[in-house]
C-alpha cells in the first residue's frame, strides 16, 4: 500500500510499523481477552445459556422480530419513495405558493427526531404501533429522498433542461421526462444508502412498543430470565448488522457498476450517508 501522505517505507520504517502493528494487535487482543474473561466470570459461556438457540420457539420469536423489522422497512420504503419524488417536484416547482410551503414542511420534517414523529402518530391518531412506525419512517425519509433527488437534479448540466424547454416541452414535462430519470440514476447509491438508514431506524420501533427484533429480545429476556439477555441480544445485534452490511454492500456495488456504465458517472456519496440521518 502506497499513499501520498508518507514516503514508501524503507527497512527501518517497515520495522517500526511492524512493531507498531504488533503492539496494536496485542493491545486490542488484551481488551478482547479482558472482555471475554469478564463475561466468563458472569457465566455467559455456560452451555445452557446458548442451548436455547436449539429450541424452535426461540428462533420463531427471533424470526418474527426480523420479519416485523423487514416488513416495516419495506412498507415504509415503498411509500416514502414516490412521496419523496412528489415532494421534490413540489420543492423545485416554478410556482411560489407550492415551492415555499413545501420548503418549510421539508425543513420541519428534517429537523425532527424520527422517534418523536412515531410517538406523535401513535398517541395523537391512536393508531397501531406498526402504523406509527411506518408513518414516522415515511414522513422523515420522504423528506430525505426529496432532498437527495433535488441534489441530483441540480447536479445535472444546465443544458439538459434548456434543451428540453427548447424543443417545446413544458417545464413540468422537462422535469419528468428529462431531468428526473437522470437524477434518480445518478443518485442511486445515495438512495440505497438512505435505505440502510431507514432499516436502522426501524429499531426505533422498540421505543413505541412495536414488536421488532429488539423488542423480541426484551420479551425473550423477560420470559426466559435475565441470564439469557446477553446471548439473545448478541444474536439479534449480529442479525441487524448483517442485514445492514448486506444493503451497504449493495449500495457500493451499484455505485461501482454505475460509474462504469453511466456516461456522466455517479455522484460519489459515502455509503450509509455522511449524514447519519435519524
Amino acid at each position, binding site marked *: 500500500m502506497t499513499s501520498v501522505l508518507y514516503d514508501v517505507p524503507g527497512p527501518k520504517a517497515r520495522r517500526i510499523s511492524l512493531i507498531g502493528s504488533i503492539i496494536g494487535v496485542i493491545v486490542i487482543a488484551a481488551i478482547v481477552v479482558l472482555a471475554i474473561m469478564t463475561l466468563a466470570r458472569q457465566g455467559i459461556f455456560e452451555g445452557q445459556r446458548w442451548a436455547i438457540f436449539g429450541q424452535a420457539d426461540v428462533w420463531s420469536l427471533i424470526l418474527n422480530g426480523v420479519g416485523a423489522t423487514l416488513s416495516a422497512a419495506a412498507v415504509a420504503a415503498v411509500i416514502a419513495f414516490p412521496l419523496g419524488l412528489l415532494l421534490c417536484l413540489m420543492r423545485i416547482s416554478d410556482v411560489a405558493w407550492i415551492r415555499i410551503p413545501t420548503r418549510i414542511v421539508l425543513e420541519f420534517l428534517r429537523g425532527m427526531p424520527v422517534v418523536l414523529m412515531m410517538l406523535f402518530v401513535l398517541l395523537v391518531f391512536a393508531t397501531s404501533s406498526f402504523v406509527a412506525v411506518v408513518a414516522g419512517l415515511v414522513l422523515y425519509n420522504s423528506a430525505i429522498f426529496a432532498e437527495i433527488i433535488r441534489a441530483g437534479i441540480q447536479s445535472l448540466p444546465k443544458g439538459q433542461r434548456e434543451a428540453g424547454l427548447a424543443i417545446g416541452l413544458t417545464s413540468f414535462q422537462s422535469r419528468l421526462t428529462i431531468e428526473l430519470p437522470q437524477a434518480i440514476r445518478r443518485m442511486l447509491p445515495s438512495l440505497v444508502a438512505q435505505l440502510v438508514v431507514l432499516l436502522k431506524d426501524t429499531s426505533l420501533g*422498540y421505543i413505541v412498543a412495536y414488536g421488532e427484533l429488539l423488542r423480541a429480545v426484551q420479551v425473550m429476556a423477560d420470559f426466559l430470565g435475565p441470564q439469557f439477555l446477553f446471548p439473545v441480544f448478541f444474536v439479534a445485534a449480529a442479525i441487524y448488522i448483517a442485514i445492514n452490511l448486506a444493503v451497504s454492500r449493495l449500495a457500493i456495488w451499484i455505485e461501482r457498476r454505475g460509474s462504469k456504465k453511466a456516461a456522466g458517472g455517479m455522484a460519489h456519496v459515502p455509503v450509509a450517508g455522511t449524514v447519519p440521518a435519524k
Partner: protein
Amino acid sequence: MDVIIESLPQYWDGFLRTLFLAVVSGIIALIFGTLLAAARVSPIAALRGFSMAYVEIVRNTPLTIAFFFAAVVLPRLGVTFQQFEVAAIIALSAYTSAFIAEAVRSGVNSVPIGQAEAARSIGMKFSQVLSLIILPQALRTVIPPLINILIALVKNSSVAGAFYVLELFGYGKQLANEHGDAVMSVLIGVAFFYLLITVPLGYLATVVERKVAIAR
C-alpha cells in the same frame, strides 16, 4: 397551549439536558472521530484495520441497539453507571464518531495531492504532514457535513429519552402520559424545542458552506 406554558420548567430542564448530551458527546465524538480518520490513513496496518472495522460495524449498527447495549446489557454484566446520562453519552459518542471519521476521511481525500507531496518534499514526516498540512485544510472543507452530523446527533439524543434519561423526549413522554387530553400540544411543544436547535444549526451549515467553499 396552557399545558405548554404550565410545564415550561420541565421543557426547559429537558432542553438543557438535550443540549448537554449533544455538546458532551459531540466533543468526544469529534476528537475520537478525527483520531479514527488519522488512523485510517496512517502507515501502520493494524491501526488502519482497526479504524476500518470500527467504522464499518458501527455505521451499520442501529443506534437503539447501541443504547440497549449501554443501558440494559452492560449493567447486567456488572458495568453499572451512577447516572444513565453516562450510558447515553457513551452510546451517542461511540455511534457519532464513526460518521465523523468517515466525513474527515473524505475531507482528507479532497485535499489536492500536491499539498502532501510539497509537505513531504520539504522533509516533513507523516505526523507533521497530517497535523500541519492536510488536516487543517480537510477540516475546513468538511465543516458543513460535520454540522449536519451534529444536527443528527441532537436528534439522535432523543433515543436517550427511552433509556431512563429525562431529556426533551423523555419529558415529552412523561408529560403526554400526565396530560392525556392534550397530547398534541405537549408533543408540538417538544418539537418546537428540537427545532430551536436544529433549524439554526442547519442555517449555519448553509452559510458556512458558502463561506468556506474555496475555489480550487
